[in-house]
């Protein structure tokens, strides 16, 4: 296990480094010189050259990359060419907001999917089980941002019970913070919950056919008891794999949902950065999101091993 952990950690670091190369190379292709853009068309060549050396964009790409990547390793994302503000703290602030959004959505999705999916599997032969399957199919067909728009229509426009957007920091007003997050959480959680319900259902269905469940019943357990004691942990193994993939999807879904609800998270920062052609900022945010996906994959792989003794 320790050996695996070390190896897997190595893979994580190597892929993060490779991802950094890809992100940097991509952005280096960007036409236009940040210094020229910053100073406008009327700038003197001398001023541009000076700004260039200030930005460090006059150096060879390899040097620039090493400088940027070296900074990243220490949590330094550089300074924006456009606003002149350091990027790291901005990303730090926004990351917290997005993380709350994503984790809340995931928790909600699990709260929906685990009971519903299990129920649908146990009752797969009757109407209610089939109804859950149909409902989850419909849920999957609705993208998170569309769910957001529908929820705004129902809860903000019709019922006027919740805000249609905006974000209040928790330190300012915890109650408003919560009210503002309800609809974004629901947008992400309902859709992901629908996706997960299907996976939970099929995992539980598979487990229900397993011989060891029959063994458990032969020991004197009822069908439900056998499923609880022996089925759910086994069923959780494939679900954990999917959970990792979904968490990555959710992270990206959050970018769009932030736009729907005007929430100042990473997605908002990223899209603003693109709009303002803030190269280094976009580079930084993309890197953080990609690293988050890689980290999630790492955690899932390790969790997988912990759950299944056959892989230890």
């Amino acid at each position: 296990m320790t050996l695996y952990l070390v190896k897997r950690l190595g893979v994580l670091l190597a892929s993060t480094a490779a991802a950094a190369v890809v992100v940097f190379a991509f952005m280096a292709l960007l036409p236009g010189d940040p210094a020229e853009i910053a100073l406008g068309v009327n700038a003197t060549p001398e001023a541009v050259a000076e700004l260039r050396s200030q930005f460090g964009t006059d150096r060879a790409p390899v040097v620039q990359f090493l400088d940027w990547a070296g900074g990243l390793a220490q949590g330094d994302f550089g300074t924006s060419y456009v606003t002149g503000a350091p990027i790291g703290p901005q990303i730090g602030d926004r990351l917290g907001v997005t993380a709350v959004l994503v984790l809340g959505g995931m928790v909600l999705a699990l709260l929906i999917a685990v009971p519903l999916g299990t129920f649908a599997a146990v009752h797969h032969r009757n109407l209610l089980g089939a109804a859950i399957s149909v409902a989850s199919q419909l849920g999957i067909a609705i993208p998170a941002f569309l769910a957001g728009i529908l929820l705004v229509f129902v809860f903000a426009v019709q019922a006027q019970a919740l805000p249609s957007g905006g974000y209040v920091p928790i330190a300012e007003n915890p109650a408003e913070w919560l009210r503002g997050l309800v609809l974004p959480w629901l947008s992400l959680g309902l859709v992901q919950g629908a996706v997960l319900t299907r996976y939970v259902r099929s995992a539980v269905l598979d487990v229900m056919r397993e011989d060891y469940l029959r063994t458990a019943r032969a020991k004197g357990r009822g069908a439900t008891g056998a499923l609880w004691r022996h089925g759910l942990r086994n069923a959780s193994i494939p679900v954990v794999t999917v959970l990792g993939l979904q968490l990555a999807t959710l992270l990206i879904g959050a970018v769009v949902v932030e736009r729907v609800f005007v929430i100042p998270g990473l997605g908002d920062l990223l899209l603003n950065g693109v709009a303002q052609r803030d190269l280094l900022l976009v580079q930084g945010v993309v890197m953080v999101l990609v690293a988050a996906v890689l980290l999630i994959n790492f955690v899932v792989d390790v969790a997988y091993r912990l759950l299944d003794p056959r892989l230890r």
Partner: protein
Amino acid sequence: MSALLTVEGLSVGADSVELVHDLSFTIGPGERVGLIGESGSGKSLTALSLMGLLPEGVVASGTARLGGRDLVGVQEARVKRLRGSELSMVFQEPMTALNPLMRVGAQVAEVMTLHGRSRQDARQRAVELLARVRLPEPAEIARAYPHQLSGGQRQRVMLAIALANEPRLLICDEPTTALDVTVQKQMLELIAEVAPALLFITHDLAVVASVCERVLVMYGGRVVESGPVREVFTHPRHRYTEGLLAASRLTPRGTRLPTISGSVPAAGRFPSGCVFRNRCPHATPACETAPALTGDGHAFACWHPAG
């Protein structure tokens, strides 16, 4: 001496198809009975109906009593208490019968805590049981996960689970079919030694001969012949038993291997009357009427018996 298990008029069916028809037999205390038949004969369903573990949509009727307690047509909550304590079962496939995520010892202990033993007591006794089924280093095996054991070892663990609460009847459904030949023999000897009373299901005549005292031959969901193993195997009366024995006998080189012509029909496709008549070389129009299972001790259901 009164019987331990009494089965009377047991039928098992799914939808409108009858899979086991009007089965009656008894097992005395300490008796070892073989239930033999090809796949599709209904032998596994018979066992599962006694355990109350029939798959969804399959229903049993008739009566089966174990020491005065009903097993068929009773509420699940009541049969549940008997499973694993009064009667227990070892299945065919040892590789998949154990929970892969749980230590072996815990899986043996579980069956005891379920029926009222304290956790600590059960854990200790689990190791003793593993020793009883002749697993070397039982304490270490108890800490292992199923995937770390061989098929034969896993089947011994299943046997330990089955024996844990000193049941009155042990049912084994092809317990050695999935094992290596060398392991099979040891396993059979162990089962014969530890079983309180035994219902042993198999398609293998040699296995029945080595383990059981009495045999029931099933075909098409019915018992077609029953009696002491030695007698049935040396003087088979039903034509199906006769064919089965002939097919299993080792034949000298060059002679044609005798087989039963045709194959076992699908469930619900057996002929009316004698279920074997469409494959029987001795069938006559008389066989269109179902023969009854008659005879004391050695009974058979055939209009044109052999010998």
